[in-house]
């Protein structure tokens, strides 16, 4: 029997990882929690506010975006590290097989992504049904953009989880702790620090710093891109215009955001693969 091709191997590992992810129960729990929260946001956007609302759709979508930004990086990091940082014995056994390490890692990442994406799609599907039973077609593009952003964040933070795991083979607790720190920095601390530094600078430099920060941090990039896509320049008031002015127009702004997200999609995974190939297990 000839050895299967690389792609087939990746598929095989992906499939196995998907099965493992579903079996671990973390993915189904995430799916249920995410769907429940999405539904709650979708309903409250339209029903709890008592029918008042000028921007029902935009407000609901913005709340959903917040939910995504909080939950998706966290679950991707935790589930990713738990799946990718095996105990030492397991790692030795796995990587002793006649399969390139890169293939194993990429396959596992693909499988995890499939599992998490599927879990999110359930939530988005449920929320979409509630929202679009009331909102009309106008927001469909923004909603799609949000789903895309969420999937991008999933892939980005799985890549980062891989990088963390590869650096901490056999030290799972440490890897999990690092993952939590990374999450806190990306979602909260980075922005606070940037705002702090910005107050010390002259206004021109400060504006450029804030705009750069928003592009460089993947969580901020997805947030900014999605909110601008949904609400247009009303998303951040005058700051939207400052953002477009400093980046050189809305097309250029979109390009910067896409480049940033693209870099975050590729770089951590590539680094993880290279590190794994050199690692002495």
């Amino acid at each position: 029997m000839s050895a299967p091709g690389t792609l087939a191997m990746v598929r095989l590992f992906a499939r196995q990882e998907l099965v493992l992810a579903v079996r671990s129960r973390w993915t189904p729990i995430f799916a249920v929690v995410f769907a429940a929260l999405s539904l709650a946001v979708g309903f409250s956007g339209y029903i709890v506010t008592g029918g008042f609302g000028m921007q029902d759709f935009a407000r609901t979508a913005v709340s959903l975006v917040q939910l995504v930004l909080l939950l998706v990086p966290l679950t991707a990091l935790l589930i990713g590290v738990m799946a990718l940082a095996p105990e030492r014995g397991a790692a030795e056994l796995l990587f002793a097989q006649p399969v390139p390490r890169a293939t194993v890692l990429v396959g596992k990442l693909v499988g995890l992504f499939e599992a998490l994406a599927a879990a999110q799609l359930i939530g988005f599907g449920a929320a979409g049904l509630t929202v679009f039973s009331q909102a009309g077609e106008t927001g469909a593009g923004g909603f799609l953009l949000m789903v895309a952003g969420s999937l991008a964040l999933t892939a980005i933070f799985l890549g980062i989880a891989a990088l963390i795991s590869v650096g901490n083979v056999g030290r799972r607790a440490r890897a999990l702790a690092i993952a939590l720190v990374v999450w806190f920095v990306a979602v909260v601390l980075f922005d606070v620090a940037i705002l702090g530094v910005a107050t010390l600078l002259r206004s021109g430099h400060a504006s450029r710093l804030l705009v750069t920060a928003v592009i460089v941090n993947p969580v901020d990039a997805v947030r900014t891109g999605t909110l601008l896509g949904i609400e247009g320049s009303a998303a951040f008031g005058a700051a939207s215009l400052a953002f477009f002015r400093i980046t050189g127009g809305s097309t250029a702004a979109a390009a910067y955001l896409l480049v940033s997200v693209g870099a975050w999609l590729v770089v951590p995974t590539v680094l993880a693969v290279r590190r794994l190939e050199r690692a002495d297990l």
Partner: protein
Amino acid sequence: MKPSLLAVVALGYGVVASAQIHDGTPGLIEGRPEIRAASPLQQLIDASPPGGRVEVAPGTYTGDLMIDKPLRLIGRGRPRLVGSGTGSVIRVRAADVVIDGFDIDGRRGGDLTRDTSGVHIAADRVTVRDCRISEALFGIYIRDAMGVVVERCSIRGIPGRDPGEKGSGIHAYNTSGTRFTDNEIDDVRDGLYLQNSSNGEIRGNLVRRVRYGLHYMFSDDNVFEDNTFEYGDAGTAVMYSERIVFRRNRFVHNRGFASVGLLLQQCDDVLAEDNLIADNARGIFIEGTNRTTLRRNIVAESDVAIVQFASAQGTRIEGNSFLGNMSPLSLVGKRVDTVFDGNYWSENPEPDLDGDGRTDRPYRLSSVFDHFRGNLTAADLFVDGFAAASLGVAEQAFPILQLTEAQDRAPLARPPDLSAVPRPRIEARQSAASPMALSAAAFAVGASVLARGRRARAHKRGGGA
């Protein structure tokens, strides 16, 4: 072309500043049109006895018209009056004239300094009813007159012109006791403009896509109620006027960079009750006023709910509902004697433990994040983020910055029942088939992938057993 931010700011303040030196002086009063520019209806009018009734058959009548005796000019089957393109289409020069049921086309003619309009009125107790005016510089221009009534008219400006090249929808100069009701005005400079005009009533009008929806200059003792002003630079601008009272209006979707829902400048004793001020860049702008009272209004979904200058004195803001505004208050200058009392603020996290309907502590109308953004526009990029929220929490725990002391002394714990406030006009709230189908598909795909994982697991187990 992308305007520099500075230029945009300058433009925004320019809108406010230029209004202060607004040149509202009317031009000369046009008389009888020349023979070759006159409408065929002119003979009919000249032949009618004073106080008579002139009925006009359906059809198109080209040329201008002067009415210099009291009479009722009634259109049957909506006759079209097409102007000569050189002056005002109908010129009313006698009191007690009624014009009813015409389509009036100004043919983009004339110029602003001559007040060229669809209907030009310089006489008392004139009524214009059920007319549709289009392609005219000014829709209806009224000067030096008492008791003029405009009702159920639709006025559409000249499309594609800059605001500076347009006239107002209805323009009143030196009038008293005018009544403008149930008109629709679109795409003009100011929808309704009143200068040196007192004791007027404005009710049930819809004004959109204008500079200012309603604009008072030096006009005292006016009332406006149940109007909608949307998609303008300002919903309503009250300037240099006293005792303006308004209720149940909608000031909505004024979303431009420097746009305002309600603009109050250099005016005294303004009273606003039960209005809806929503989805504006800035909700209410107050400068140089005395004794403004805002009661039971809903101010929602603005970037900043209230912008107030230190020059505003004796402002009372009570019993309003502030919902989902990015920031509640922006103060220009430090001194504030504004009273905030018993308003509801949707961002107020304080509990009401003693159950008296008010939260237990005053609500401070600025967060540490507002302090940042006050100095730095781009900080708003973070306004919805977790950083802003955590800064707020941290600041409450460790108050290190001396912030403005503006606060609501006894904020409401729950949104008040403001049933008199008009609701937003709901635009197309129906279900959308294809996004719903997509959502259902997403749900199905997600569920099936997870289910397949489960089945594979069961299969594996079966194989192992």
